């Protein structure tokens, strides 16, 4: 009997490509022979746009990249600009940044477990995880007024201090979330079908993972013990005590385990950070960069002019170039910033973890079946907003 390769177009409208990813898959029966990802459907030119905005104005663009982890994008950006400027951030601001970053990690991982489970057919986990995510969204709204595009961090600190009631809300998360994780594990880790679907799926060896430049949980799932928070600490991560989980079998199940442990560790980091939180300023003492306090803007002409100057012209940044990587929930999110001494970035290049991780999709899914491809997309945890930018 003659057989023929079937070309299947998955996406850009497809429920499991996590956005507008398009995969042209060549199939022999149901077995995948070749995968060609086509990206760019969500390209908004964020890197280019930021070249025409002041450093403060470019900040809200960043949280539109990985919209599941907006504060991490903000964090990488402000850290890079602060590095260029050489300013120090007050300790309280740094601690709050860590709290928000870890809440963001939880938020992103909750979406990951929800979608990953739904892709493999377990509906209930999806709803449960989104219920928990809602709690974090509420915290986002509390601190920044927005649920997704937070724009809470500022170059030099934070836009405002934590509102009243934040601490008790975080305490509730710290107390209840480990129990919720147990629920997910009860539904998935102990489920034979889940194990059969994930163990041995999407295997990528440590060498291959490094060659492809994979980072984040996907890299750690392959047994490479590397976490920027621990190995190249930023924002005071060296002060926290947390484990970096590492997988052994390089498969989807190990990546799943790694992320679950990461979620539990994130809760621990939040708990430690809340205990470290001491009253103090949340914005650096750098008047040329930071907005003046609102009382002074509203009540004194000097304050008003100060605010106007920064809002209209921005602030000059010394000539130079920096690279700042942060451990985004998806992997290493890097900002390469070049300044020509003006008030706008000369070049902002983003190293998006999802984009680099997506490169390995063919390596991971070739020779397996369509259902495995869906699981691999889920385990890579990609966000198209970040891939296309």
């Amino acid at each position, binding site marked *: 009997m003659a057989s023929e390769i*079937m070309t*299947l*177009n998955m996406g850009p409208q*497809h*429920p*499991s490509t996590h956005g507008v990813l398009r995969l042209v898959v060549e199939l022999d029966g*149901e077995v995948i022979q070749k995968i060609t990802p086509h990206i760019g459907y969500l390209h908004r030119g964020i890197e280019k746009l930021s070249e025409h905005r002041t450093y403060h104005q470019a900040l809200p663009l960043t949280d539109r990249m990985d919209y599941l982890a907006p504060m991490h994008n903000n964090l990488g950006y402000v850290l890079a600009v602060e590095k260029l400027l050489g300013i120090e951030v007050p300790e309280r601001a740094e601690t709050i940044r860590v709290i928000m970053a870890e809440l963001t990690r939880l938020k992103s991982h909750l979406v990951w477990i929800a979608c990953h*489970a*739904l*892709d*493999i*057919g*377990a*509906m*209930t986990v999806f*709803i*449960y995880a989104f*219920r928990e995510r809602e709690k974090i969204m509420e915290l986002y709204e509390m601190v920044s007024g927005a649920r997704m595009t937070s724009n809470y961090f500022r170059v030099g600190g934070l836009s405002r201090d934590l509102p009243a009631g934040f601490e008790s809300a975080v305490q509730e998360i710290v107390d209840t979330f480990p129990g919720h994780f147990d629920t997910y594990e009860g*539904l*998935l880790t102990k*489920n034979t*079908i*889940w194990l*059969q*679907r994930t163990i041995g799926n999407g295997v990528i060896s440590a060498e291959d993972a490094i060659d492809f430049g994979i980072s984040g949980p996907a890299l750690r799932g392959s047994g490479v013990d590397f976490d920027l928070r621990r190995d190249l600490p930023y924002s005071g991560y060296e002060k926290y005590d947390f484990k970096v989980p590492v997988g052994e079998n390089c498969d989807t199940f190990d990546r799943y385990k790694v992320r679950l442990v990461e979620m539990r560790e994130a809760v621990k980091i939040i708990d430690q950070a809340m205990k470290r939180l001491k009253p103090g300023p949340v914005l650096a003492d750098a008047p040329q960069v930071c907005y003046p306090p609102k009382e002074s803007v509203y009540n004194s002409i000097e304050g008003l002019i100060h605010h106007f100057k920064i809002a209209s012209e921005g602030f000059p940044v010394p000539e130079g170039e920096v690279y700042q990587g942060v451990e985004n929930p998806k992997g290493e999110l890097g900002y390469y910033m070049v300044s020509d001494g003006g008030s706008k970035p000369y070049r902002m290049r983003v190293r998006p973890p999802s984009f680099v991780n997506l490169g390995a999709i063919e390596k991971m899914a070739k020779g397996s*079946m*369509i*259902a*495995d491809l*869906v699981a691999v997309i889920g385990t890579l945890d990609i966000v198209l907003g970040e891939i296309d930018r």
Partner: protein
Amino acid sequence: MDTLILGLPVAYYIAMVAKVLVAFVFVLLTVAYATYAERKIIGHMQVRLGPMRTGWHGLLQPIADGVKLFFKEEIVPTQASKFAFLIAPLVALIPAFISFAVIPFGAPVTIAGYTVPLQIAAFYDQAGQQVFDINVGVLYILAMASLGVYGVVLAGWASNSKYSLLGGLRSAAQMISYELAAGLAIIAVFMLSESLSLHKIVADQANGAWYVFKQPLAFVIFFICSLAEINRTPFDLPEAETELVSGFITEYSSMKYAMFFMAEYANMITVCAVTTTLFLGGWHGPAFLPGWFWFVAKVYFLIFCCMWIRATYPRYRYDQLMRLGWKVFLPLTLLNVVATGVWVMVFNK
């Protein structure tokens, strides 16, 4: 009453039509409200409410859905094979309904001196005080269940869409391999009842223990295989939404889509009714409530289990599903048949 048509009294025909209507309306209503129940039950399992807006607690939702689907535009893809595309929903739907013809759903009732067995394809011998039903009832059900596959395969083939094709192929492979294990699981029941007549099987269980206690393995395997045959989670591969974007029904719209939907639920009811009849003592239960009540209660309980499973389990992968069918269930059922044979030989003779 004494007039005979083809050797049978007029009352027989009247009772027959009445039974058909009752069974049909029952299945149809259950199909409509099974969709509602599924959404409600899974909703509550997933800490949400399910439909709430149409009527009190969304009770009119199935009607709203029906009306909506009825008024939707009929779309036939230009590249589709039109005849097969149109006939496929019917081929899927009809066998789902007619399987119900042989299932006894209650104790015989006497109306105006004429006793009617509550089983469509059955006849009550008024003189001999005995029920005669189709003596190959189970085979008939298996045959009808296999016919339903054609609807799915045709739909997948005729849509001329790659996703549909993959769905149709998966479905064909899946249904055929699970039918075998399901059939072998039932053989163990035949060996105990020594009959293929469903009436006889039910009567046998009323006298002794339910077959679920005598044949627990066969019960479990039959129920799982049935889930696979009717494409329910965790075996809903042919319409795997996250992989194949609804598989064989991707290209269907309007009432044709609704027919596949109805077929799925009608199949679920039939399968639960067959399981009830074969393993859970059919319509028999404590005598303070009528037989049909127990039958409906047991069927609804099994339907609830189907929905519960859907809320809990992820989906199997195609090859894992085949492996489970051929390498696990088939040998197990064969073993069960042998074990039952030995047991019958040793203890009954």
